[in-house]
């Protein structure tokens, strides 16, 4: 297969998050920015309007009744992505266990409790059922296994980046990072400072975030991984949205505490 020429340069923005100050006794582990409005596959980036993990071109199926506008088209608690992976026709979806609350996601891992209980058999109370550092929802989105702790450390496309790193960079774990894919990878910088009270704080800069032409705005989820004195890990997260019309190379600044643009 011939490699296509590099596509025209992607419009990008930079997001800065300032003054992230872990509480005393809490250690900062890592920071991720995950782009929810797009998906890199087959050497380019595709739009995902409903941010369900299925890019638009794969998200309209009459048999499955998936729709690119809605993450869970029939609102039964089983998202279009899982419907796609499970091959559930409209009839088959009716036969799925009825979800008493189609939106309930106790562990906030982007998978409803019904999906975790009935389809994936992961723990609806644990953000990361296999404890490998990647949430259940992110594993499913990226073709990884939410109950296998080893897969995120492996490198199936042998491009020198373990799958957990590819999740962080928003590149596909099962496609070797070509020049085109590498050009779409998010870039991270971390700056450590002392604030006025001499506490350790961090400023993060995430650049090369693509601006996609989605009518509902580009959604980026920010994750801050911490660990306490007993080694128990925790994740804090908030989201930012910027419009499709955002100018190229804009820098969007957020304060960690207020989660608002400055």
């Amino acid at each position, binding site marked *: *297969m011939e490699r296509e020429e590099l596509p025209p340069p992607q419009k990008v923005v930079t997001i800065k998050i300032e003054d992230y100050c872990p509480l005393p006794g809490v250690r900062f582990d890592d920071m991720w920015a995950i782009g929810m409005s797009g998906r890199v*596959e*087959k*050497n380019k980036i595709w739009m995902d309007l409903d941010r369900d993990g299925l890019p638009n071109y*794969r998200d309209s*199926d009459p*048999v*499955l009744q998936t729709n690119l506008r809605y993450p869970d088209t029939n609102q039964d608690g089983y998202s279009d992505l*899982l419907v*796609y*992976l*499970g*091959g*559930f*026709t409209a*009839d*088959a979806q*009716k*036969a*799925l*266990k*009825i979800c008493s609350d189609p939106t309930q996601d106790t562990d906030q891992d982007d998978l409803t409790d019904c999906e975790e*209980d*009935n*389809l*994936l*058999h992961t723990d609806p109370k644990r953000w990361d059922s296999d404890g490998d550092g990647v949430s259940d929802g992110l594993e*499913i989105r990226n*073709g990884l*296994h*939410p*109950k296998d702790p*080893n*897969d995120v*450390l*492996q*490198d*199936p*496309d*042998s*491009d020198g980046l373990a799958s957990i790193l590819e999740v962080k960079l928003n590149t*596909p774990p*099962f*496609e*070797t990072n*070509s020049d085109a894919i590498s050009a779409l990878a998010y870039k991270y910088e971390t700056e450590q400072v002392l604030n006025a009270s001499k506490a350790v704080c961090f400023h993060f800069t995430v650049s090369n975030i693509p601006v996609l032409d989605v009518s509902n705005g580009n959604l980026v989820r920010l994750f801050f991984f911490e660990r306490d004195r007993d080694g128990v890990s925790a994740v804090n997260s908030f989201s930012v949205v910027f419009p499709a019309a955002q100018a190229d190379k804009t820098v969007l600044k957020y304060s960690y505490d207020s989660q608002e643009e400055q």
Partner: protein
Amino acid sequence: MNLKATGKLLLSTLTVFAALVGCSKEQLQELERFAIIEEEKATVRVNFCTIDANAVKSNLKFIFVMDKSGSNQDLPDELGTDKNGYRRYTQLLMFLKDAASDPSVFYSLVNFSTNANVVSGFTNDRAKFTTTVTKESNPSNLNPPRPTDGGWTNYLAAFQQVNSLISADITAAKTQPEVVSSYYVVVFITDGAPYIGTNQLQAKTDILNAIKGLKSFEAQREWVESVQVQTGFYYNDVADATARDLLKDMALTGSGEFYEFAAGQVIDFNQFAVPVRKVKHTLRDVFVANMNTVWWNGQRLVDSDADQLPDENEVILGSDPYDADSDANGVSDGIEYFLNTRPCKDSKCSAALAEPYLNCATYKRSNLPNGQKYGDQDKDFINDCEEAVILKSKIDSFDSNDDWIPDDLAFRFGISFVQGRSEIFLDPDNDNLNTYGEIKVQTPVRYANDRIFGLNPYEYDLQMVSSDLVKDCYQLDVLNVSRSTGENRIRVYLLENTSVIDDKRFMRVSEKSMAGGFVEFDRGDFQ
């Protein structure tokens, strides 16, 4: 000194050595063939798709619960609702007649009036069940047909029987070797409210609790996909509001539908068919290896018979470099060497003096191709005798320790593959590449890569070609594949799993000879 020169030096040393120990001229000529072509690497191209989304197996189990209270027949002040049993049984019999033969569909029948009985437990024998229903619809063989109706309408007794039926069925399913879950569909048909005496009505709360009790079986999720209660109400001209409301609520509680049959309406049983689910496979990993090159003490050497022992070693050890099992005892030279540092018990590898491995007797199979002695149940290229008796790995799994490194690849690279022990994240040679990474790019696990001059690890270029409902397709180019002057059998391992609903693992392997510097695998090679 570069590797080529080293190789030549080795060759000449061996030649001298061979001459000293009295090798024949033919053997000396053979030694010249043992060369790895380091300058020219090969490329392997693999076109493959994940296995087509395949149907997930579930059972569908019907429980027909039929009213046989007295009101079905004519009463002094009321016409019977179903004197001949047509409304209750005809539709069911028609459904049974037309239903496609499907061993995963089961039927059972419970009837109830003052008490309840199980007329038939679960059977997937449609003919047998049809006979049972026919008999039930007309037990005394009357003409015109007439069921034996009489008594009150005891809903609770009926649900008690249904509960026992499902409970026993789940218990029985647990003893089966294969885990197959079931959809239970209860079809509750009645012509009136639950009177168990004059003006004695069973309480709605009790009935709904009975249904909740059925739904609670869903907690056993490996065995129970769902329990649904459908309700059907048939009557003459006027529907009893109490009955209708109750049956509606029952259906709601039971996640089912409520049907009303004024004269004429029918249940379409076909709508309960369990739809086929086609669960997609996800690629887990892919490995490419040249079976005829093997690492030995930091050197890549030729292994013509692919038995893990380099040809030049075999010449010295006394085994045949072109025969993976020189003493023909069913256990390969490489595995015998691993066990005893000798490929054969006898120094000349004669068959007569070979180790018999008597403990392997149960694994002997006749009529295997190529004169193989033992079977290979899991088809992982290590036979059952070698796995069960010698290496202590599993004969029913291609990946005995579930670390997604196929057993034979793990053996090739000298890492553990027995259950409970995986070494994929260790780095014994401290070259910053863990064993998993080394196996991916086919570099030695116990010899630091930076000490191997001119080492070119394999390079992968994996691209997704297409992705749809049924499968994901990829093209993989592997560069820097090692090449020998002799045969080059290239083996490709495809590993995938399902994770939605079922958690199943799959491995497919294809092997092809590489001529010159290129070989291509097509999708069809992995069927």
